[in-house]
């Protein structure tokens, strides 16, 4: 179904009777060309690009819960391509370009809103690091601007310039960064994939893999056996759980990341703001809520909820840079499970088992990567070769010593 203002108008006049479901609710067929495990953002995007770009339509997406119930449904909706390392930046910039054309592409308004992402710095050495990063961004075709204190005072006069413990000296700004209505991304991809014939099978949990002679031939699920010669795991947060069923140990720990939203407020923030001397980042949703977050709780966890000290830590960070939010109230907090990888960067790769593919390790940065992750995974599945922007996201990169460590924290997942 094609959406437009006109369609809404006509439906409005005729009692909104003509709207159709965005996707079917099919039962699984016995066999597919490709099975994608995980109906979250990345899985649905993979299905979308497989069916729309690579013309492979005999695809199933199997999802344990409801479509979009993973981290696509519980993140802080930020998009940006402000990475430093050459293994990362071209990939995230590719993602940004896909975001910019996404709505036209899948005819669904996911509210891609490029109001800018601002990383505040507080010391000269932080500034040096941001200059290096900004230059790396521009050299990879992205946009970046260094703002000094004067520029910032104009754009964000409400920051605590006078009384800050760590002085606000400027920011690295990416004007094309911003936020997106997260759920709508899942829905738009699902709609687009379903329209090409992809079966999205909800409430279908993988209970095991069928592996013979080092080759994966299908999956066992609570809805029966489904066969395919290409099985693509895409379940960030639960990667270790799922891949352990195939006997694979990953360079990943699962950690809980909390996110927060305030009550609705009339517009106060121009874009996304991140604090460089504490754990706090914030944007404002179209409904008016301040959407904010900070650091992961820091211990292995599969519980989608966090604990109090982090809540306080994040709010302290918020009050430290913008004390005008003190009387705004926290409305809701929730947790999501992150695949924290050993160097903070993701994996899109084959595994040692033929026919079994892996996409995961997104840490807390998976949302912005959704389009490129889907595209590059589809590319790998369709052509057998990695997409040129994702060549370094190898599952066994650490064995050779290839490390993509943006923060320089080393092989300890909770520090990334």
């Amino acid at each position: 179904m094609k959406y437009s203002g006109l369609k809404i108008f006509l439906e409005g006049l005729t009692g909104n009777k003509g709207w159709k479901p965005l996707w079917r609710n099919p039962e699984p067929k016995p066999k597919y060309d490709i099975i994608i495990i995980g109906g979250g953002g990345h899985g649905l995007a993979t299905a979308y690009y497989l069916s729309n770009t690579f013309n492979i339509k005999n695809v199933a997406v199997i999802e344990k819960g409801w479509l979009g119930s993973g981290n696509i449904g519980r993140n802080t909706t930020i998009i940006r391509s402000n990475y430093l390392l050459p293994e990362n930046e071209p990939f995230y910039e590719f993602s940004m370009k896909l975001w910019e054309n996404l709505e036209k592409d899948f005819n669904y308004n996911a509210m891609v809103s490029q109001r800018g992402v601002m990383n505040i710095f507080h010391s000269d050495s932080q500034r040096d690091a941001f200059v290096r990063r900004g230059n790396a961004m521009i050299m990879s075709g992205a946009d970046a601007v260094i703002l000094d204190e004067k520029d910032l005072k104009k754009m964000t006069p409400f920051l605590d310039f006078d009384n800050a413990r760590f002085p606000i000296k400027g920011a690295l700004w990416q004007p094309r960064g911003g936020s997106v209505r997260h759920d709508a991304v899942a829905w738009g991809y699902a709609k687009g994939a379903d329209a090409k014939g992809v079966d999205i099978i909800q409430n279908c949990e993988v209970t095991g893999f069928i592996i013979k002679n080092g080759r994966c031939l299908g999956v066992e699920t609570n809805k029966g056996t489904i066969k395919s010669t290409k099985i693509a795991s895409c379940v960030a947060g639960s990667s270790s759980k799922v891949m352990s069923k195939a006997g694979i140990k990953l360079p990943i720990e699962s950690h809980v990341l909390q996110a927060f939203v305030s009550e609705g407020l009339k517009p106060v923030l121009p874009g996304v703001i991140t604090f460089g001397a504490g754990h706090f980042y914030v944007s404002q949703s179209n409904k008016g809520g301040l959407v904010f977050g900070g650091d992961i709780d820091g211990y292995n966890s599969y519980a989608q909820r966090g604990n109090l000290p982090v809540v306080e830590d994040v709010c302290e960070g918020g009050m430290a840079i913008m004390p005008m939010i003190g009387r705004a109230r926290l409305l809701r907090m929730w947790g999501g499970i992150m695949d924290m990888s050993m160097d903070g960067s993701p994996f899109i790769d084959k595994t040692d088992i033929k026919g079994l593919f892996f996409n995961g390790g997104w840490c807390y940065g998976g949302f912005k990567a959704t389009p490129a992750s889907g595209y590059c995974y589809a590319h790998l599945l369709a052509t057998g070769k990695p997409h040129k922007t994702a060549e370094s996201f190898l599952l066994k990169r650490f064995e050779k010593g290839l490390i993509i460590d943006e923060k320089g924290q080393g092989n300890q997942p909770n520090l990334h």
Partner: protein
Amino acid sequence: MKKAKATNPICIRELRIMIIKHPLLGPRDSSEFVYKGDASLLDRPKWNGQKSEKKFYEYGYLRKNPAGSHRELWYHEQGDRSWLVVTRNTISHEIEKVELARDIARKKKAKAK
């Protein structure tokens, strides 16, 4: 022209959750501790042993990451600076057991001999 700097970026890590029953000090708020990760980090391979490259890769990078009971290392940084092995359920967060890492490491060494 930019100023030269000797100082590092500002980033202070701290805190985190729950109550840990320290074997020497009794129940302590987990915000006094720092988390490291899987207790398999106690099993550092021999540097000159067979296949040590592969073993160090697995030691340094691969994790079981179970949903359920997990033995993990916590450091009582704002306390007596003991490293502890805490057995904790990663789904419910309930803590089953707390031991001194040093005791476990000693037992392992004794066994290896």
